[in-house]
C-alpha cells in the first residue's frame, strides 16, 4: 500500500515538504552526534595509547598526534555546524574548484614521498588537495544521483563514472595511486548505494577479474608486481620485499591471545617492524595486546561504522543517505585494507590504520568526513525550499 503523500513529481528535487518541528535537544543545538563522538574519542584514545608504545614513549610524537586529533575534532565540529543542504548546494562548485586545484598541483605541486601531490602555497600549511576529493567526489555524486530517479539509469551511471574518474585520473597523474583508488572507491560506493543494478555490478566485477591479468602483464609497475608476488610468497625475498610482512606476521602471531603486555612488544621495540608508527601499527597492537586487543579495536571500529550506517539510514534525504553511506563504507575500507595488509590477507598497499596510525592530513580528512556525518544527523529538520 502506497500512500499518496509518499510520491510526488519533482524536478531538481529539493526537500519540498516540511517535517514536524521536534524538540531540539542540546546535541542538536550544537550539531554534534554524541554517540559518534564517543566512539571517535575512544578510538583516538586507544590510538594514542598504542602509538605511545609503538614510538617507545616518544612524548613529542604523542603530543603532536594528540594535537592533530584535536585539530581534527575542531574541524569536525566546524564542518558539522553547516547545514547538510549547504554542502549539497555547493557540491558542484566545490567539485569544479577541486578539479582546478588538482590541475594546479600538476603544474606547481611539490613532490613528497614520490607523489607530486602537495601544494605549498605561501601563508598556508602545505597540504594535499587530493585528500579533499575523498569527500568532494561522493558529495558531487550524491548531489547528482539524489535528484534523479533511483536506481540510476545507465546514462546517470556513465556520468557518475566520468565525475569519479576525472579527478582520479588527475590524482594518478600525481603518482598517488592509493588516494586515487580511495577516491574512486568512494564514488563507487555512492553508485552502489544508489541502487546500481546487480547485473551491472556483477558485470563490473567480472570485467575487473578478466582485466586484472592483463593489467598485471601489461600495465603494472615492477614494484606493484613485486608486491603481488610477495603477497603470494613472502619468503621469496625474506630480507627484502618480504621482510615487512614476515616481521609483522611474526609480531602478530607471537602476540597470541593475550599479548605480551603493554610496552613488551619485542618485535616493535627492537625495530624489527618497519613503519611501526604508521602503516604497520596494527602489528604492535596485536603483539602487545594479542587477539583480544585486536578484537577491542574491531569492536570500536564497528561501533563507529554502525553509528555511521544508522545516520545514513535515518538521514532525511537521499543526498544525506548516499553521502553518509559512502563516508562510512570508505572508512571501513580504509581500516579493512590496512588490517588485511598487515596480517597478510591482502598485498601491501600503503594505507594507514585510521585514527591509530601516526599521520596528519589523513586524520583531518577523516574528521571532515565525520563532521559531514554529524551535519547529516543533526540538521535533519530542514527549512522549506525557497
Amino acid at each position: 500500500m502506497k500512500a499518496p503523500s509518499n510520491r510526488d513529481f519533482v524536478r531538481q528535487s529539493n526537500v519540498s515538504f516540511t517535517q514536524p518541528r521536534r524538540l531540539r535537544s542540546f546535541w542538536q543545538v550544537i550539531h554534534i552526534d554524541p554517540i559518534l563522538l564517543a566512539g571517535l574519542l575512544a578510538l583516538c584514545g586507544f590510538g594514542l595509547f598504542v602509538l605511545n608504545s609503538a614510538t617507545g614513549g616518544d612524548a613529542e610524537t604523542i603530543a603532536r598526534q594528540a594535537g592533530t586529533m584535536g585539530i581534527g575534532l575542531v574541524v569536525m565540529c566546524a564542518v558539522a555546524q553547516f547545514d547538510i543542504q549547504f554542502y549539497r548546494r555547493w557540491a558542484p562548485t566545490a567539485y569544479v574548484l577541486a578539479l582546478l586545484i588538482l590541475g594546479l598541483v600538476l603544474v606547481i605541486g611539490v613532490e613528497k614521498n614520490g607523489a607530486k601531490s602537495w601544494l605549498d602555497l605561501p601563508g598556508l600549511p602545505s597540504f594535499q588537495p587530493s585528500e579533499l576529493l575523498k569527500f568532494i567526489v561522493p558529495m558531487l555524486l550524491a548531489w547528482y544521483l539524489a535528484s534523479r530517479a533511483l536506481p540510476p539509469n545507465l546514462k546517470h551511471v556513465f556520468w557518475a563514472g566520468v565525475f569519479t574518474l576525472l579527478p582520479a585520473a588527475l590524482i594518478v597523474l600525481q603518482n598517488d595511486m592509493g588516494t586515487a583508488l580511495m577516491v574512486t572507491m568512494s564514488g563507487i560506493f555512492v553508485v552502489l548505494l544508489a541502487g546500481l543494478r546487480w547485473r551491472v555490478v556483477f558485470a563490473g566485477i567480472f570485467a575487473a577479474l578478466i582485466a586484472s591479468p592483463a593489467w598485471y602483464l601489461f600495465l603494472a609497475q615492477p614494484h606493484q608486481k613485486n608486491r603481488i608476488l610477495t603477497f603470494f610468497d613472502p619468503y621469496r625475498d625474506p630480507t627484502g620485499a618480504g621482510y615487512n610482512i614476515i616481521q609483522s606476521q611474526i609480531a602478530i602471531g607471537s602476540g597470541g591471545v593475550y599479548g605480551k603486555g603493554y610496552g613488551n612488544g619485542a618485535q616493535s621495540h627492537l625495530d624489527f617492524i618497519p613503519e611501526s608508527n604508521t602503516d604497520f601499527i596494527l602489528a604492535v597492537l596485536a603483539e602487545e595486546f594479542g587477539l583480544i586487543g585486536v578484537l577491542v579495536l574491531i569492536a570500536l571500529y564497528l561501533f563507529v561504522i554502525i553509528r555511521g550506517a544508522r545516520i545514513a539510514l535515518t538521514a532525511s534525504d537521499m543526498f544525506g543517505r548516499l553521502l553518509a553511506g559512502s563516508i562510512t563504507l570508505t572508512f571501513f575500507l580504509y581500516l579493512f585494507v590496512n588490517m588485511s595488509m598487515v596480517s597478510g590477507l591482502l598485498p601491501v598497499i600503503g594505507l594507514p590504520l585510521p585514527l591509530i596510525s601516526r599521520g596528519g592530513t589523513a586524520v583531518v580528512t577523516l574528521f571532515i568526513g565525520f563532521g559531514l556525518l554529524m551535519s547529516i544527523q543533526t540538521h535533519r529538520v530542514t527549512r522549506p525550499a525557497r
Partner: protein
Amino acid sequence: MEGRWQLKDREAERRLFARRMLVASIVIALLFAALLVKLINLQITQYDYFAARADGNRLHSQYVPPARGLIYDRSGELLADNQPIFNLSVVRERVDDIEETLELLSSLIRLAPEDVEQFRERLKRRRVPFSSVPLRYVLTEEEKARVSVNAHRLPGISIEPQFVRSYPSGELNAHAIGYVSEINREELDAFAEDVRENYGGTNHIGKTGIERTYETLLHGEVGYEVVEKNNRGQVMRRLERTDPIAGKNLTLYLENRLQRVATEALGEHRGAVVAIDPATGGILAMVSKPGFDPNLFVTGISNADYSRLITDTVNTPLFDRTVNPYPPASTVKPFIGLGGLQHGFTDTDTVIQDPGYFRLPGVRYRWGDYTLRTAIGGGHGETNLQRAIFQSCDTFFYDLGYRMGIDTIHSFLSQFGFGQNFALDVGYARTGVLPSREWKQATRNEPWYPGDTINSSIGQGYMWATPLQLATATAIAANKGVVVKPRMLAAIDGEPFEPQDPNPVGNVQIDNPEHWRYIEESMTMVVHRPYSQVFRDYGTAYEAIARADRDMSYKMAGKSGSAQVVSIAQDILQSEDIDLSDLNKDHALFVAYAPAQHPTIKPQIAVAVFVENGQHGSSVAGPVAKAVIDSYLLDILEIDFAAVATDPDALLSEDAERARQSDENSPSLVALIAEHEGHRHD
C-alpha cells in the same frame, strides 16, 4: 520530457537504499570474519611457530672470549698486557648490500684496501651464523663517533670493544715472548672440534715464542651469553651468561732488565744473547737483534710494514738468532779438552810443539793455526791443554781431536746438548749439528774423512750450534756436569711450575773431579790471565774484559770464538790482500759463566753471546757477556763480592801478581804484540 521529469518514489528509494546498506553490512561482516579467521590462524593456530620466530629474531647466543693470560718477567714486570680497543664489526646476515655498506663506511672512516681484503677472507671462513666479523681494528674516537651517528644507515655494523694484546717492552722481547695475531683458516682447520668451539669468540692466537708455546694456558676457556639484539644487530640486553675463564698468568725466568742490558750491549751489531741460570736452567735473557715491534702484528700488520720486515735480508729482524745455528768455533774447545782428559787422550801435563800448523801423517795438506794469519806468524811453541784453551791454540786441538776421533767427540759433546734441543719449552729452537759418521752418511751420503774431524775439533766444518745450545752447554760446565735444561716458564698464576722432561738425561760424568777444576781454571785464564814476558801466554779475552775493568770483583770463566762465515781455503788465508766485505767477516762468539772459582758462591749465570760478522770474539762479544753478567750479579742479584770472604786461590794470586807486574811494565813490546793479536784472533 523523459529524463528531466521522472517519477520520484521517495519511499521506494529509501527502501532500495536500506537494502543496499544491508548488503553492505553483510559484506562488512563477511570481510571482518575473514580477517578474524586470519588473525586466529596467526595468533592461536600458529602461535608457537611465531613465538619461536620472534625469539629467534631477538635472541642470540654468542661467545664471550676469555681474557688472555698476562706474561710477567722474573721480577714481576709486565711483558704482555691486554688493552681495550674498539673494532668495527659486521654481521653479514644483517647487511643487505655489503658493497654499498663498505663504500659508505670508507667515506666515514679510514678503510684500507687491505682491511677490506682481509675482511673478505674472514667472511669466507667457517663461522657461526649471525656472528660478527671484524672489519677494522682500533677505531679512533672520531671514527667511533662518525659510525655511531650513521648507525641507522649501517644495519649489521657495530662497534665492539675488545681486549687485545699489547707488549709494553716492544722490540725488546719480540722473539722470546713472540706475538699474537689473527687466527688463520689453516689454524682453525687444524683444531679439534672442542678446541674450535673454545676459540669461538677469539680472534687472536699466539704465533711465535711464549705466546705460541703456552697458547693453551694463556687462552683460557670461552664463555657464553644469550643477548637480545635489535634488527641492526645491536645488543640491547644480556639475558644469560656463563662467564669465560681467563687464561693463566705466566711468570717467566726472563729478566727484562737483563734483556735491556744485553740489547744495549750489542749496540749496532746484529746478534744474539742467551743467559741461563745454571741452578734451574731458567732462561734469564734471550735477545735476538735486531728485533721488531710485536704490537704491529696484533691488529694486522700493514703490507708496507710487513714487507719492510721481510725484505731486509741483511738484518732479517724476524729471524730469531738465539735459536738458529752457527759454527760455534773455538767456544767448543773447553768441551773437547774436557773430553780428551776424561777419555785419556791427553792429560794436564801433555805438551805439544805447535809450529803453527797441523799435518795428518802422510798428507801434505797443512791445517793452519790462526796465528798464521797474524803479522808475527806461526805457532804457540810448547803448548799444554790449559794454554791451548786460554790462547785458543788450534794446532793442539787439531791433534787432540784427530786422536780422539769423531765418535768420541760426538758422544762426549752430545752430553752437553749439542746437536739436540735440550730446551723444555722452546720447541721451535733448532738442533744445530753435532756431526757423526752416521749423520754425514745420512745427510750427505759420504763417508767421514779424518779431515772432517780436524775441522770439527775447533768447532768448524760440519759443527753448528745455536746460541741457546752454547749457553746450555756453558751452564752445564758451570754446574760441573749437572745437566740443566733451559726453560722459560717459572710459574703459572704464581704457582711455581715444574715441567715434565720427556727425555731425561744423566749428568756429565767426569771420573777425575780435578779435570773440572782444571777446565774452569783454563776458562778463567781466558778472561783473567794477563800479559807477561812469556810469548803468547795471556788470556785471549784479558784485554777486553779483565784489563778493561780492573776493579772486577768476581772471576769469570769464558771462551771466545770466531766463526768463519765463508770457507776460504786455508792457503789463501795466508795472503795479505784479502779484503773481506762486512758480511763476510767472521761471526764473533763468547761463552762465559760467573762467578768462577769462587769458594762459596756457585756460578749464578751462564751466557752465550753471538755477534753476527762481529769478527773478534773476545773484543766484540766478550764485553757484551761482561755487561750482562755484571748487570745480573751486581745489579739484580746485588752480590757484594768484596764483602764475601774469599779464600785466596794460589793460581789467582799468581795471576793477580802477574797482572800487576804487566801493568808496571806496560806498554811492553810483548804486551803490544799481544794486544795486536788479541784483536786478530781468539
